[in-house]
């Protein structure tokens, strides 16, 4: 091995960087960007999970223990108590009202205290009473997100034990019953599957699109296509259709694997899941095209991949709920199309929702796809 020749090769590599300022910027800024996103996301705890409280507790004389627990629930930063519904508020069926909020997707959970909550606690005597005699809190939960379920349960248990230990200084059991409005018997995989399917399709359509368009441009095939009667719209539309189909086949394969190997279930319409993923694939293809138009070389084009992929993986609710994304990064979450695909696909797969419930997600994805494709056409015309 000749050192001089080896150094000559190294120098050639470094010299070519000198002519590509964007790549130099990428090499410096990308690690900063990554560590910042990872740091903020992993540092983030689940916050502000929206819940309703139905407090039917009649208390015993002046004592109302549910009120004490609710005070602690309000102080818990992982929850945001939207409303506390009491008997005096005049609802015909407060429990049904609270449960409905969960089934409508307005809240992740409803925490219900029965009329005899305080009285059951007061009459409980550790020596003579059994667990069944203990006071009971019922949680009506949206089980479509495993992390959220765990967070609500943990917050309720912690508030109860704070009341028992600090306020009352007693030790006695309180039953926390769970009633799943959605996702009965579901676990981690059911929460992740819709996200992973969307993520897989997004990654593939985006990456293939960005690479194949830069290839079309640098090899001159794009110019050659456009020298024929084919229009810019037809080129973009043709690509969109092909990539949408690739996305569909891919999501079909991932979905089938999840269903067969991991016993993931689909409550709602399979076609609706595929439609969601199809729209995402088409939109990401358009984004890939737009970004590749801003790159001179294949090397510059691939630099866009991590810039889009990392925030999507971490901030779209694929693995962690949006509630765990720090406030500062939340706007990015809402800018990422994957967020809407994951929400839509998860709602269909776990909650069994239909078009009338998930249409806002589909509308965003459709708008994104149309905007990306339209911009691609405009950009191609402005050559």
């Amino acid at each position: 091995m000749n050192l001089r020749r080896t150094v000559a090769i190294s120098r050639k590599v470094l010299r070519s960087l000198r002519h590509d300022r964007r790549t130099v910027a990428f090499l410096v800024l990308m690690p900063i960007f990554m560590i910042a996103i990872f740091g903020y996301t992993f540092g983030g705890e689940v916050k502000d999970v929206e819940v309703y409280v139905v407090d039917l507790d009649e208390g015993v004389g002046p004592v109302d223990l549910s009120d004490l627990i609710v005070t602690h629930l309000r102080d818990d930063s992982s929850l945001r108590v939207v409303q506390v519904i009491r008997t005096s508020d005049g609802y015909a069926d407060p429990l049904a009202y609270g449960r409905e909020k969960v089934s409508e997707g307005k809240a992740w959970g409803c925490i219900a205290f029965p009329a005899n909550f305080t009285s059951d606690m007061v009459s409980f005597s550790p020596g003579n009473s059994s667990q069944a005699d203990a006071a009971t809190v019922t949680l009506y939960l949206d089980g479509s997100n495993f992390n959220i379920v765990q967070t609500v349960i943990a917050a309720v248990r912690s508030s109860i034990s704070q009341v028992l230990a600090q306020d009352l200084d007693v030790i006695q059991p309180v039953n926390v019953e769970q009633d799943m409005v959605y996702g009965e018997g579901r676990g981690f995989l059911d929460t992740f599957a819709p996200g992973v399917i969307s993520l897989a399709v997004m990654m593939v359509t985006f990456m293939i699109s960005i690479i194949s368009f830069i290839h079309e441009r640098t090899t001159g095939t794009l110019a050659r296509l456009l020298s024929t009667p084919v229009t810019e719209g037809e080129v973009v539309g043709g690509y969109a259709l092909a990539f949408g189909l690739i996305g569909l086949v891919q999501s079909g394969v991932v979905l089938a694997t999840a269903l067969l190997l991991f016993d993931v279930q689909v409550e709602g319409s399979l076609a609706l899941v595929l439609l969601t993923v199809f729209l995402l694939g088409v939109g990401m293809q358009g984004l890939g095209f737009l970004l590749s138009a801003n790159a001179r070389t294949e090397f510059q084009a691939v630099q866009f991949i991590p810039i889009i992929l990392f925030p999507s993986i971490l901030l779209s609710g694929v693995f962690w709920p949006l509630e765990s994304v720090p406030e500062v990064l939340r706007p990015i979450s809402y800018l990422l199309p994957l967020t809407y695909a994951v929400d839509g696909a998860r709602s269909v797969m776990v909650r069994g929702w239909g078009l009338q419930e998930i249409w806002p997600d589909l509308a965003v994805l459709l708008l994104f796809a149309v905007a990306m494709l339209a911009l691609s056409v405009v950009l191609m015309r402005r050559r």
Partner: protein
Amino acid sequence: MESMTMVVRTEDLRKEYGDIVAVRGLCLDIPSGCIYGLIGPNGSGKTTAIKVLMGLVRATSGTAEVLGRKVPVKGKDARVSYMPQELALYTDLTVHENVQLFAELNGLEPSSFEGREKEVLEVVGLWERRDDLVGQLSGGMQHRASLACAMINRPELMFLDEPTVGVDPELRAGFWEHFHSLKAQGMTVVLTTHYMDEASRCDLVGMMHRGRLIAEGTPDQLLKDSGSGNLEDAFLVFIRRCQE
């Protein structure tokens, strides 16, 4: 020439890329049914001129007409075809698949495609290799495949940008034979080349230098006007004249 139909007409055509003027004041009149050679060294503006005529880049000023339609035309014309300087074919597709793509984009009827494909691929000597991936062909064969794609739709006018660059002498001779047979069929071929010896095989030659057309005429006329023995010397004479 006035009595002939002009397939290409440009008036004071100019194209700037930032500070660089690629084409300056180009006036062309190319009659139908001839082989027109745009000759000049690399960087003289030939490719840019062709790209403007194909509507692939927008002229900075001036006007151009191709087959009687003002450039850039809205909705490209299948009567015009273009073979770029670079390969510009899909190397991951077979010869047949590439040819079929350009046939479809140019609106060739599927019923007439098969016969036409055989005709064109036999002319370029690739009929036996039609199911090979373009990426696996030799450089010369790839070039011929590219020419086949430009011819598949029976265009009236073909723009060929440096069709013979990097082609071996034997194949070059074959190409020229083919250009003359296209002309015999009534087609107009506009090609660029920086090989001066190729200019003598054209009916009409336009010599370009630094974005300008410095001389135009039949090869014989150009030799006579310059008083030179070959076109290479003639080119140098014309450059000198326009610098004086």
